[in-house]
Structure formats: C-alpha cells, structure tokens
C-alpha cells in the first residue's frame, strides 16, 4: 500500500502533464505537491524499517515472478528518502513553477511528463525486490532522462544526449548480461524458480553459488551499473550530460540517479560477497574508485566550464563512495553517509549553477566574474555549498569523509588513503581557485540578476544548506539507525 | 662584604671608563710607532673626549628624537656590559644579572641603535654604514655564540664569573686545543665587532670604505663623545673578555686589597699585550674588501665550531 503512495504520485503527475495540453502552470504545482506525498511515503517507509518492519508487496500470480516484487529494507528506505527529497526540491524549483521560465509550453509539457516518469523509474528501481525489475527501471531512467537533456535542441545538447544515451545503454546492457549470468548461476545450482531474481532469494542462496561465475557476473554488473554511477573510466558521459542538461535534471541525475546506481552496485556487491567473501569486490571497487579519483582530480585542475567541473566533482565523489564501499562496515557506513550528504549538496549545486548560467548566459568560468555582486544570494549559496562539497566543516561531507578515512586507516590502507588525501587536496585547491575567479572581480558586462536570485526563489536551497550543517554537526538518531541497518545489509 | 662587592662593581665601571680611551690611544700610538711615526701620545683620546664634550652639537634637520637618544642608549648599554664583565675580580656581585649571552645582546642593542641613528639623518653614508655594520654584526654572531658554547662547555656555565673561577680552578683547560681555537675565533670576531682592520679601518677618511665611521658622520659634540667613548669601551670589554676568559691568571677572587692591586696591574698588562697584538695586526694586514669579510668570519666560525667539537670530544 505504502508503495502506491510512493510510486503513484509521479505517475499521476506525468499523466496529468500528458493530458493537459497546452501546459499550464498548475501542472507544475500539482506535481510538486504530489512529490511531497512520495516524500512522505518514503519517510514512512524509513520509519517502518527503523522500527524493524520490511514493507513488501507483490502479486502472487504464478510464473510471472511478481511475488514480493516490491520490497523496501533500510537501504532502499535510505535511498528512497534521498530520491524523493531531491525530487520534491526539484519539482518545486522547476521551471514554470511560480518562476520566470525561458521554455515554451511544449517544452514544459515534455519536461513535466518525463521528469515525473524519470522519478517514478528511480523509485521503482530502488523499491524493487527483483533485481530484474531493478534493471528494467534503471534502464528506463536512461530513456526518460535522455528525453530531458535536450529540452532545447542545440548542437551540444544533442551531442551530449547521444553520448549519454549510447554509453548508458551499452553499460546497462552489460549490467543485464551480468544479471543474466547471476541468474544462470542460480539456475544451474537450484533450478528454475520464478522469484529467483528476488534479492531476498538470491541472498539466501548466495553461499552455494559458483564463485567463478559470480566473479564474471560481478564484473559485468560493476561495469554496467558503474556506467550509470559514473565510475571511471565509464564516467565520460557525465561532464557532457551534466553540462548540457537543464538544472533540475542535472540535480536529479547527479544526486538521485547516482544514488540509485550506487544502490544497485551495493546490492550486487552484497550478493557477490556472500559468495566470494568481500576481498574480490573490494579490490575491484578500490581500483576503479582510485581511478575515478585520479581522473576527477586532474580533470578539475584545468576545468573551464563550471558545470562540467561539477560533473568531475561527481566522479570524485563516486570514487570516494566506491572506496568506502570497499572498506568494510565502517567504510560502508561512511560511503552511505557520504551518499546522503552528496545527494543534498550536489542537487543544491545544480540549481545554483542553473541560476548562474541563466544570468551569465555562459557555462564558462572565464565569463563569470563578480558573482557575489551580481547574484548575492546565489553567489553566496554557491560559495557555501561548494565549500561543503569539497568537504569543509561544518558540513556533512566533512564528517563522512572523516569517517571514510577512519575506515581506511583502520583497515591498514595508509597508502591508498594517502593518495586519496593528496587527490582530494588537488580537487580542493582547484575548486577554490575556480571559485575565487567566479565570485570576485568586476562583474561581467551585461549580466542581469533577474528574479531567480530573489530570496524567495532560492529559499528552499537554504533548507539544503541547513540539512548539510545538521549532518555536519550531528547525526540524527533515525538516520543513524537507518545507516547502521543498511550497513548490515551490504557489508557484514 | 656585600657592600664591598657593589662598591667594587662601581669601581670597575669607573676603571673601565678610565682605561678605555687610554687603551685606544695606546693602540694608536703603537701603530704610529710601527709606521715609523712619532704619533700622538697614548692619552690623546682623553683630550679628544674633553674637547668634544666642550663643543656644541649640530644636528641634521631630518633627524628625529631617535638620533638624540641613541648615544645615551649606546653608552648606557655598553656601561651595563661592564657591570657584567669581570675585570679585576670574579665573580662580580652582579654576576647573576647576566651572562655572556646577555653581554653579546646588550652590545647588539648598542649596535642596533647606532645603525638606526646612522639611518636617521637620511644620508647615503649613514645608510651605507648602518647596512655594513649590521651585516658584519650579524655574520659575527654565530662565532660569538659558538665561542660562548665552547667556554660553557669547559666551564659548565655561561655566567662570566663562574667561567673565570672554574678556569682558575682547573688550569689545564686553558691550554686545551678547544680553548685556543675558541680564543682565535673570538679574536677575529673582536676585530670585526670593534671595527678594526682588516674588517674596518678606524683611521680612514674615505667614506666609501667606512663602516663604523660612516654611521657617525652626522654626530658631533657630546653625542660624538659618548659614541666614541662607548666604542672604546667596547674595545676594552672585548679585550677583557679575551684576556680574562681565556687567560684568567691574575684576577682576584677575593676582595683582598693586595689581590685587587695585582689584578689591576694584571689587567693593564693583559690589555696592553692585546693592544700590542692588535697594533701589529693592523700594521701587517690591509683592509679586506667588504665582501671578503664574510669569508674571514666564516673561517672564524669554523674555528669556533672546531673548538666546540674538540672540547666536546675531549670532555
């Protein structure tokens, strides 16, 4: 039942947007309000899991494999809260909701349809018990988001979309191959069972699966979902897609979609570890995590485009989370906490960047000067959230990075952690340098602040900042429990 | 007894003040003789002081109050040093007031203000002198510190009174290689610090080669008298240090009048001998180019380092 409250609102919103033509402002408002219902549902699910319940729902139709198809344990709940939270923020700050917009009605309609579908797909991916359904939903996110990137058809946005689409499709195809291999393993061990692809079943059978096959399967899965998550070297779509997508989509993709992909990897890692022990998957994750960090760090140094810079920052955080996942329970805790923090910070960032780009009409750092003077609200928030993003206190990312390093050093990985620290310092410095270029100086000619910078219009973002500060200074008990339970699920 | 100690302190200061011009004059006289001249008599500096105290002061209109207080600070700090240096009796009543480091830094205080006073009127020569003086003073500093270290190493203290008494108690130290090396090092530093050849020519008239003189070109009358007196006093102090720290024989360890008399005579003899050495050296050597001075001081540093090391190894 709770799953309906979770999944239906975006679908309804999407339907509404489909039916109402031409687009009207109220559609945006309705979908924004509906998103709150989803958010409430996610919170409820979280509360239930904290209490020890695991909501589960399914259709007991024979041979359809829909038995217990939806299930939300703590890990799902955590990611669901993240997704619905960002979704609500996005929908409230979307174009056409009480704000000036530069899209026409047709584009807005398309936007409303697909953004809600996109959200629904993500929610489904996370609340699916069946890894096949999860895969389908994640594949669907690619498709829906691909429709959204080129809201306005420009050369570059088409290019970005095509690259994104093809890379993601190939990646996700490989993930499917991995899923098939895992299923193959299951079948060759326990025969054909309809709900074999259910996560719960897989986990229960896992200790008896064939290690050699699981090894291969995990490679496909890691590459596949890693492409979605933007782990290097499959990250190449990120700068393009983030750079070209409208701010709300960028926000959703960089935070929520990213969380979904990490969620999928974590799930499969748990299965793999149950078969092989954690060493194997850890090594792969450490290797790819380090690679991500290295590439991200050195790409940021000479970044010229602030949106692409954010994409590289995403790659960096992907790397960190991969490292965390590979560093035992402490590390998994850090990784999940970091995931939460990153979700809040990165989504925030994209809205600010959207404002900046609209005002300056250029995504190039060298064209943005005097940000603090031109857009005092946005500029200030941008500075603060960028500092939060690079891990300064009193923001949440500082704490989660600290936890990560604690895990790393406790696991006797000083060299790895040392390199990580160096790379993070490089990112830090580069960001500060770029930030300074943008914040200060004589304002660029012909820049108009517009209404986007009004206090009211950026007010929701202050909530995000507030959340980051709260997460930086303390860890609310429910979240702590949720994280602890999630860690138990993915890293024993 | 305590009062005698303080009386002796004051007596020592007066003695130093009285001896200082004579020492400078003696060196000059001896140098003149070595140049085959008749020269001014050794007591000529007393006349000069008297004359300078009788003259008016002409002060640059660019100079500030610093220019006027500097001579007093220089003079006072140098006299304060004489309170610490055992000349005729060791340990002094005020021995605990300061040690060798205090001596060095009090002298640096004087140099500091002299250099500032040199800059104050804004002439090129004053600045030049200040610059060179501070350069030489700075580079001489490590040697002094190491010489102190060497002495402290053998005497177990940096307080001068204790160094002297320790050495008197243990004469073998005096002729140890470390001691001799330290003496040579400190002697070179003395040349630099007191503005003697080959570092500086006290008798030069040529502004471009000056160090000490260049700073005081603007001074006249009583201020000049104070500064000159202080610099002679500084020479006396360095000589006393060289003689009493390294060759402490003759110094009184009690307040016995006979011993004190012997000590005064011993002091005068030792100062005269050192003055003679300086005169000979100044006759023999030419002034070094300014940029060769660091090499000389570097050599003295190495000597001092060897002194410390050999003392340490032999300890």
């Amino acid at each position: 039942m709770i799953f309906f409250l979770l999944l239906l609102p975006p679908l309804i919103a999407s339907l509404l947007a489909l039916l109402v033509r031409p687009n009207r402002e109220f559609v945006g408002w309705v979908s924004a309000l509906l998103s709150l219902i989803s958010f409430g549902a996610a919170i409820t699910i979280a509360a239930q899991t904290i209490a020890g319940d695991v909501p589960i729902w399914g259709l007991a139709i024979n041979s359809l494999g829909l038995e217990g198809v939806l299930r939300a344990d703590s890990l799902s709940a955590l990611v669901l809260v993240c997704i619905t939270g960002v979704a609500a923020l996005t929908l409230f700050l979307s174009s056409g909701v009480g704000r000036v917009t530069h899209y026409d009605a047709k584009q807005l309609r398309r936007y409303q349809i697909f953004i809600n579908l996109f959200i629904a797909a993500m929610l489904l991916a996370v609340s699916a018990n069946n890894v096949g359904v999860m895969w389908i939903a994640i594949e669907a996110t690619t498709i829906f988001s691909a429709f959204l990137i080129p809201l306005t058809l420009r050369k570059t946005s088409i290019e970005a979309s095509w690259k994104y689409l093809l890379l993601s499709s190939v990646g996700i195809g490989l993930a499917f191959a991995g899923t098939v291999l895992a299923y193959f393993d299951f079948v060759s061990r326990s025969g054909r069972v309809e709900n074999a692809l259910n996560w719960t079943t897989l986990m229960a059978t896992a200790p008896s699966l064939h290690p050699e096959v699981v090894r291969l399967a995990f490679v496909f899965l890691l590459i596949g979902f890693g492409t979605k998550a933007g782990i290097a070297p499959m990250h190449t779509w990120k700068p393009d897609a983030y750079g070209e997508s409208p701010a709300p989509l960028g926000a959703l993709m960089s935070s929520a979609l990213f969380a979904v992909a990490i969620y999928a990897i974590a799930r499969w890692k748990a299965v793999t570890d149950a078969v092989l022990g954690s060493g194997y998957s850890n090594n792969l994750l450490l290797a790819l995590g380090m690679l991500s960090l290295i590439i991200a760090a050195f790409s940021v140094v000479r970044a010229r485009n602030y949106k692409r810079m954010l994409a590289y920052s995403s790659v960096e955080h992907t790397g960190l989370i991969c490292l965390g996942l590979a560093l035992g329970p402490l590390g998994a805790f850090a990784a999940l906490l970091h995931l939460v923090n990153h979700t809040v910070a990165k989504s925030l960032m994209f809205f600010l960047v959207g404002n900046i780009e609209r005002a300056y009409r250029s995504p190039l750092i060298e064209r943005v000067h005097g940000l603090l003077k031109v857009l005092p609200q946005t500029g200030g928030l941008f500075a603060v959230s960028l500092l939060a993003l690079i891990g300064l206190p009193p923001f949440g990312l500082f704490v989660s990075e600290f936890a990560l390093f604690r895990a790393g050093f406790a696991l006797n990985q000083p060299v790895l952690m040392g390199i990580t620290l160096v790379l993070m310092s490089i990112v830090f410095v580069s960001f500060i340098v770029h930030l300074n270029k943008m914040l200060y100086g004589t304002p660029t000619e012909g820049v108009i602040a517009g209404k986007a910078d009004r206090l009211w219009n950026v007010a929701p973002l202050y909530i995000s900042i507030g959340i980051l500060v709260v997460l930086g200074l303390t860890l609310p008990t429910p979240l702590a429990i949720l994280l602890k339970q999630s860690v138990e699920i993915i890293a024993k | 007894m305590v009062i005698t100690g303080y009386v002796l302190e004051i007596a020592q200061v007066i003695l130093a003040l009285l001896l200082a011009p004579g020492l400078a004059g003696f060196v000059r006289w001896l140098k003149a003789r070595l140049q085959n001249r008749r020269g001014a008599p050794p007591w000529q500096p007393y006349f000069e002081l008297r004359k300078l105290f009788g003259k008016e002061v002409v002060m640059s209109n660019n100079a500030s109050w610093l220019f006027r207080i500097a001579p007093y600070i220089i003079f006072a700090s140098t006299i304060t040093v004489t309170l610490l240096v055992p000349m005729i009796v060791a340990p002094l009543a005020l021995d605990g007031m300061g040690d060798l480091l205090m001596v060095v830094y009090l002298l640096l205080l004087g140099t500091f203000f002299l250099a500032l006073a040199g800059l104050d009127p804004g002439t090129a020569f004053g600045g030049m002198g200040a610059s060179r003086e501070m350069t030489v003073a700075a580079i001489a500093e490590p040697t002094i510190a190491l010489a102190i270290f060497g002495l402290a190493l053998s005497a177990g203290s940096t307080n001068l009174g204790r160094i002297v008494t320790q050495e008197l108690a243990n004469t073998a130290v005096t002729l140890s290689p470390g001691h001799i090396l330290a003496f040579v090092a400190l002697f070179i530093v003395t040349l630099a610090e007191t503005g003697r050849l080959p570092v500086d020519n006290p008798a030069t008239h040529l502004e471009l080669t000056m160090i000490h003189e260049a700073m005081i070109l603007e001074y006249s009358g009583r201020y000049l008298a104070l500064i000159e007196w202080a610099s002679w006093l500084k020479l006396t102090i360095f000589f006393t240090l060289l003689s009493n720290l390294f060759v402490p024989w003759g110094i009184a360890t009690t307040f016995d009048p006979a011993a004190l008399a012997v000590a005064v005579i011993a002091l005068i003899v030792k100062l005269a001998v050192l003055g003679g050495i300086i005169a000979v050296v100044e006759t023999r050597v030419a002034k070094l180019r300014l940029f060769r001075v660091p090499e000389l001081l570097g050599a003295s540093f190495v000597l001092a380092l060897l002194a410390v090391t050999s003392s340490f190894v032999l300890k």
Partner: protein
Amino acid sequence: MPALFKKILQTGIVTEPLGPDEAEIIQLVAQVDRKVQQLLGRALAIREVDAGSCNGCELEITGLTGPVYDSERFGIHFVASPRHADMLLVTGPVTRNMEVPLRKTYEATPDPKLVVAVGDCAKTCGVFKGSYAVIGSIDKVIPVDVFVPGCPPEPADILRGILAALDRMPTKRT
C-alpha cells in the same frame, strides 16, 4: 711578516724632531697649549675643503699627515665630516660651484670652530683671478681666521697657520 717588522725596526722614527730652528713652533705650541686646552684639549680635528684649488696645497697638506711632519703628534688629525671638525682648512679660490658647499660645510661645523685658508689663491685667487668660474677669495664666503700665504705653502707654514688660528680661539668663544 718578520721581514716587514724588521724593516720597521731598522727604519726607526722618521718624523723630524722639533729641532732648534723650530723653536718658534715649540714656543707657539707651549703658548697656545694652555689657552686652548680648555676648549679643544690637545685635540684638533680638521676638515679639509678644496674650494677650487689646483691641488698644490693639497699635496702639502698631505705631507703634513705623513710620517715626516706627522701632525698627529700635536693631536691634530684630519676627519671625514665637518661635524667632527674644529677647524676647516680651505684651499684655493672659491669657484662658482664650490661656493654653496663651502658655506654649507661651514654651517655644518659645530662651534667653536676655526677657518684657516691655505695658499695664495685663498686670499688673492692667484692665477685664477678674474676667471668666470671663480667667485673670489675664501673670506668672501665664510669668515677666515688665518690666511697661510705661499704657493703652495710648506707643511711647516700650514702648521704654523693652524697654530696661529688656535691662538685666536678665545676671542671667538662668544
């Protein structure tokens, strides 16, 4: 080094003793000594100013400081700054360019002070007389206590002049 000192010892003192023919000077020294000691002690610091001389006088003045005349034995020495000086020893006619410097030097010298003008030029401008570059005699620019005639005067003459100037000191005291 021994060679040097051997030579020093062999040479002995070359400063000419004050022989009987210099009795006048001895007397002069003895006379002035008492009077001026209160002011200048037995110490006289001289700043030499070349106001435009042909350097003949300078040569003689240099001779004064050499081993033979050795003015230092009288407590006379040359200094680098007029601030240190009690006496200005001025040579030559005053040239146009040296007028101000000469006056400044005079001003820079603390009281009590003396001026001795050395050489004929100082008084009469000598062969430079009438030159467009020459202002005139020294006393046109600063007050002169004693003129020492001669072209150039001998060191002994200069010494005599210096001592003569010292004699005038008490009158200048105010």
